[in-house]
């Protein structure tokens, strides 16, 4: 068993050199960040708009289901054939992967806001824009963040395909290990991607705790209940994922 981890544990690989772990991790994080950011810029406003107006709900609901049927590497190779080698096809495929979960959960989050709350906000004279940014968004934030987490998780796992088309990232160890029949190298790449995914997930859930008001996700209520001895703990991490249907197992590659 020890031999399998030899590549991962070899200190000579933990460098910022061109094929060092740190370089590949940074490349991998770079692809992930760019793709999720572009996807969020596209999906987030559309989700807010559809959620607030409830126009185009059919589109929002079915996009998630339809997107699940499209293989990400199919998009990768199609854009590759149209645009040529480079980073564009990789980012395009990853954006296509990240848009549906962000869009559908943003929509679902906004729709989950109690209509009475929105009516009350309208009643005290808030403008539509204020209702979206000051009422619907804060209340929907736990669900929206769940979608973002799901998107990041899928993208960070799928970014390994970049290496197949000559780009960098942690997929390099998977494909070069496969080509060289160097199993420890494959193990190193796999472990690093999995650990990176888990760490990113933890980081986002930390950010979520900072961003989400304690009043909207039950933390304040729990704190109050703790005094009286009642306790109900639900990790809440994946419940949102499952309930919004944005989840995709294994997050592809």
């Amino acid at each position: 068993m020890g031999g399998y981890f030899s590549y991962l544990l070899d200190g000579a690989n933990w460098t910022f050199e061109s094929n060092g772990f740190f370089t590949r991790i940074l490349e991998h994080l770079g692809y992930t960040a760019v793709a999720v950011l572009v996807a969020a810029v596209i999906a987030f406003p559309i989700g807010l708009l559809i959620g607030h107006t409830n126009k185009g709900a059919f589109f929002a609901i079915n996009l998630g289901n339809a997107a699940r049927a499209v293989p990400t590497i199919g998009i990768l190779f199609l854009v590759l054939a149209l645009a040529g080698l480079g980073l564009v096809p990789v980012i395009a495929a990853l954006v296509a992967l990240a848009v549906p979960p962000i869009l559908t959960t943003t929509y679902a989050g906004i729709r989950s806001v109690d209509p009475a709350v929105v009516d009350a906000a309208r009643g005290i004279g808030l403008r539509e824009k204020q209702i979206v940014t000051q009422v619907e968004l804060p209340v929907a934030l736990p669900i929206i963040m769940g979608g973002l987490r799901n998107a990041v998780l899928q993208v960070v796992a799928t970014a390994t395909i970049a290496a197949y088309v000559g780009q960098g990232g942690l997929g390099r160890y998977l494909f070069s290990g496969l080509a060289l029949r160097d199993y420890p190298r494959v193990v190193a790449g796999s472990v690093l991607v999995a650990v990176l995914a888990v760490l990113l997930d933890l980081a986002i859930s930390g950010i979520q705790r900072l961003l989400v008001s304690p009043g909207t996700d039950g933390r304040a209520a729990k704190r109050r209940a703790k005094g009286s001895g009642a306790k109900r703990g639900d990790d809440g991490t994946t419940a949102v994922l499952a309930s919004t249907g944005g989840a995709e197992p294994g997050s592809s590659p």
Partner: protein
Amino acid sequence: MEFFSDLVEYLEINYSTVLQAITDHLYIGLVPVVIAFVLSLPLGFLVVRYSWLRVPLLTLSSVLYTIPSLALILVIPGILQTNILDPNNVVIALTIYGLALLVRTTADGLSSVDPLIVQAATAMGYKPVRRWFAVDLPLALPVVLSGLRVATVASVSMASIAALVGIGGLGQLFTRGFQLGFYPPPIVIGLVLSVALAVLADLVIVLVQRAVTPWTRLRQGA
């Protein structure tokens, strides 16, 4: 128009390759879902019956989610001592993902069954095992099958990854296009067929669902 003639030409020359890709794809995409579904029923039962199992089992499935499938497909041969090109590596990997998804929805479905109905069934004399199959399971089916739909579509779509490590399936049409110098026809054919298979499998489950849960439609009509 030239593109469509290219498509037709590619299909004419390579139809046996494409057919083989479809069969391979169905094997590595659908077999995992069937295995995962069968395994998820007892696991879902355990999660609902023994509530202390809920958190560890469901946490385990979310952790399994985060393992990239490409990594898993490549690591499995080392653990199980299978050949690196064995399609069953993909089947095992996709089974794990399917299971991760289905245990949760099966547990959700089973716990959504009204306890009063279960009590009534017990009062009518159902023994536990028969009651579970005749009452609990059918009533859980709408939720269970909706989870199965998600798992099936995801599995069929993810099966394309196999081609990146040299295992068959429709993904091989993508890599073929890549190797032919970015030639789009096989890529487009692969994409269309992959989506079509996923949609078709989804449709089959919807039809089964309509057949086995007639009461869900009755309630809507009333």
